[in-house]
């Protein structure tokens, strides 16, 4: 068990994550009913206000706080208890992030920031919305530096040794995150804030979009890598085996530092201001992440096979039936992985240069991120939550909670299958995303979209409702394991943090030489961005004034 103070820190992070999850999923429920005209909003509430809250609270806030809760627990477990400075800075980071969250949320509620979580200029929200978002990022930097400090102390005391796999992966994720945030910090601090407070008159729109997407794509890897950590480090332990290959795991992670950043143009394929050459170059770089993804898939299946055979599985696929399907800690993550197969395939389509035109900004994209971040990532976090909170509170993970966990995972899967399938098909038919109910004045083309068995107005609403029920079951589990479940007094009831052993004897030392990876990342970023970005700045048109169109 880790130190009490470290547990408290982790629990506060996880608690805020689930508060955001509660409000965010409620927004999701409202959205599906507004979209099919079953719900009329009062005049003071707007669809896009709700959608902004949904995107910010789930994609940015739930994920970030949960990730730090997970990192803090795992770092304390793998490297030892935090020192006083690390602890202090972790708290400062937590409070700054929370302050930013509250500020941004207050602006959304006040109707001063219905600009969605991507806040594209020249839609102009209240300056405090941007300040809030900046504080969120700065808060995560403070928390990140605290963890880096903890890691450096360990390195100093363990000269010449490779760090434990969990710590290595945490530091990899943090390095990627800090580099990625430079883009959004630059645009928010130097463009949005001065403009929103009226210190400058205009904003360079295309530049702000480009800096945003410099951050926006690695953001998705910031969500995904902690889920991968669970897959690489936690799952083998649950299955009773070691990490399949320590060096492979580390290599795949550092490749993510290299290939997750210089690729933001794939979100800007259909817009002006970037020439086709640079768009295509970043498309090629985007596809490089397939390499570490294939490595991860291989490691996972190898782990499953080794574990299944150890349990007596025979024949080509017999091992599959011998996996611990009744263990919700495993089943949840397995289903999360399964969702990532169509999720990843969809991503390949989205990034494929000219194919992007077919799906860009349609409901297909909404379907896509609900089966990437909304399920593989979120469901892995759910699977971690089941035991992580009891581990931190010292309470039991009771039989009843295990049963409920299973119900929760199954309902989330069914709800998501219905909602995302419907969204994928609607998108292919041409239905746009980010829209309240609209039939475009009963235009026949728009009427056709909603005519199918899976694409009618009911399917998405049924899916969304099941999802919401599932989310509430999860909140119940969180509240129980946090405050109400019986304390574990006997040894056998104590919940463990399953962290697999990893054989580092053959892992090359250069994998942990961060300067190599940071250097290569900077080089790739320079290749991908320097020329198109400086062209964009030098040939900028007159800037735009702000608009409040809501």
């Amino acid at each position, binding site marked *: 068990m880790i130190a009490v103070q470290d547990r408290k820190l982790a629990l506060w992070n996880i608690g805020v994550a689930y508060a955001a999850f509660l409000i965010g999923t409620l927004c999701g429920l409202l959205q599906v009913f507004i979209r099919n005209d079953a719900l009329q909003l009062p005049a003071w509430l707007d669809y*896009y206000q709700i959608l902004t809250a949904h995107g910010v609270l789930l994609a940015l806030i739930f994920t970030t706080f949960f990730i730090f809760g997970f990192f803090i627990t795992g770092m304390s477990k793998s490297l030892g208890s935090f020192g006083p400075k690390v602890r202090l800075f972790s708290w400062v980071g937590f409070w700054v992030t929370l302050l930013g969250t509250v500020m941004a949320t207050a602006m959304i509620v006040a109707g001063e920031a219905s600009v969605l979580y991507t806040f*594209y*200029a*020249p*839609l102009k929200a209240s300056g405090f919305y941007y300040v809030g978002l900046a504080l969120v990022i700065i808060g995560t930097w403070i928390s990140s530096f605290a963890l880096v400090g903890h890691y450096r102390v360990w390195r100093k005391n363990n000269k010449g040794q490779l760090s434990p796999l969990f710590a290595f992966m945490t530091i990899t994720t943090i390095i990627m995150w800090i580099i990625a945030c430079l883009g959004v910090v630059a645009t928010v601090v130097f463009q949005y804030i001065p403009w929103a407070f009226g210190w400058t008159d205009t904003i360079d*729109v*295309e530049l702000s*979009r480009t800096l945003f997407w410099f951050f926006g794509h690695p953001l998705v890897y910031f969500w995904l890598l902690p889920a991968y950590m669970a897959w690489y480090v936690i799952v083998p332990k649950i299955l009773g085996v070691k990490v399949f*290959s320590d*060096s*492979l795991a580390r*290599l795949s992670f550092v490749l993510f530092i290299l290939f997750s950043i210089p690729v933001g143009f794939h979100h800007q*394929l*259909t*817009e*002006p201001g970037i020439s*086709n050459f640079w*768009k*295509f170059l970043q498309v*090629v770089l985007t*596809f490089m992440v*397939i*390499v570490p993804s*294939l*490595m991860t898939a*291989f490691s996972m299946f*190898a782990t499953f096979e080794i574990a299944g055979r150890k349990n007596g599985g025979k024949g080509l696929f017999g091992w599959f039936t011998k996996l611990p399907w009744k263990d919700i800690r495993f089943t949840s993550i397995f289903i999360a992985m399964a969702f990532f197969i169509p999720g990843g395939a969809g991503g390949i389509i989205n990034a*494929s*240069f*000219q194919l*992007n*035109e*077919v799906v*860009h*900004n*349609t409901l297909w994209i909404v379907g896509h991120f609900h089966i990437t971040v909304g399920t593989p990532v979120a469901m892995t976090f759910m699977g971690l939550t089941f035991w992580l909170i009891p581990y931190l509170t010292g309470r039991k993970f009771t039989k009843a909670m295990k049963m409920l966990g299973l119900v929760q995972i199954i309902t989330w899967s069914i709800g998501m299958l219905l909602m995302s399938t419907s969204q994928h098909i609607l998108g292919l038919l*041409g239905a*746009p*995303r*980010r*829209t*309240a*109910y*609209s039939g*475009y*004045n009963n*235009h026949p*083309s728009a009427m056709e979209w909603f005519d199918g068995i899976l694409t009618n107005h009911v399917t998405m609403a049924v899916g969304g409702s099941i999802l919401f029920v599932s989310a509430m079951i999860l909140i119940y589990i969180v509240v129980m394991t946090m405050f109400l479940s019986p304390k574990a007094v006997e040894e056998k009831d104590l919940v463990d943090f399953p962290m697999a052993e990893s054989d580092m004897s*053959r*892992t*090359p030392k250069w994998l942990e030489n961060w300067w190599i990876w940071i250097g290569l990342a900077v080089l790739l970023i320079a290749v991908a961005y320097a020329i198109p970005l400086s062209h964009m700045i030098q*040939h*900028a*048109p*007159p*800037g*735009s004034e702000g*608009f409040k*169109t*809501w």
Partner: protein
Amino acid sequence: MHLHKYEKIWLVFGIASLIVFLSVVGVSAFSQDHTPAGGMETIDPKKVNETAPFDNPGVTQLDDDTYQVAIVALAFGYTAPELKVPVGKEIVFKVTSTDVVHSFTIDNTKVNMMVVPGRITTKSYTFEKPGTYLILCNEYCGTGHHMMYTEIEVYEE
């Protein structure tokens, strides 16, 4: 570093497919001009209505086989009078915005253009079937975003 034999096969196969795939995408993009909407032209967003071709929005015939369609997007509609173009001819769409970011998206086609103030987005497209097509905005632009649409009529000559 040690790699399992099957892992090597798996990675070699994966990387080889990746190379083939990217080559197909790249060759089709650049040799056959299958590139997404874009363009490097800029414009003063406050002077759009005085700047050609947007001072005279709508359809203009450029030569026997090419037409240009100039459109200004603004919250929440398009200044696009009488959009009528022939089937089977190259149509060059040019779009810009006088306020926020929008899109110019024609349903059932590959015309899906982001419209950014200060920039001109260009896309050329040839309609294969006559009919009335729905044009809509699929980039969030404010309260009326889901009401922002118009139509284009494609006629047989």
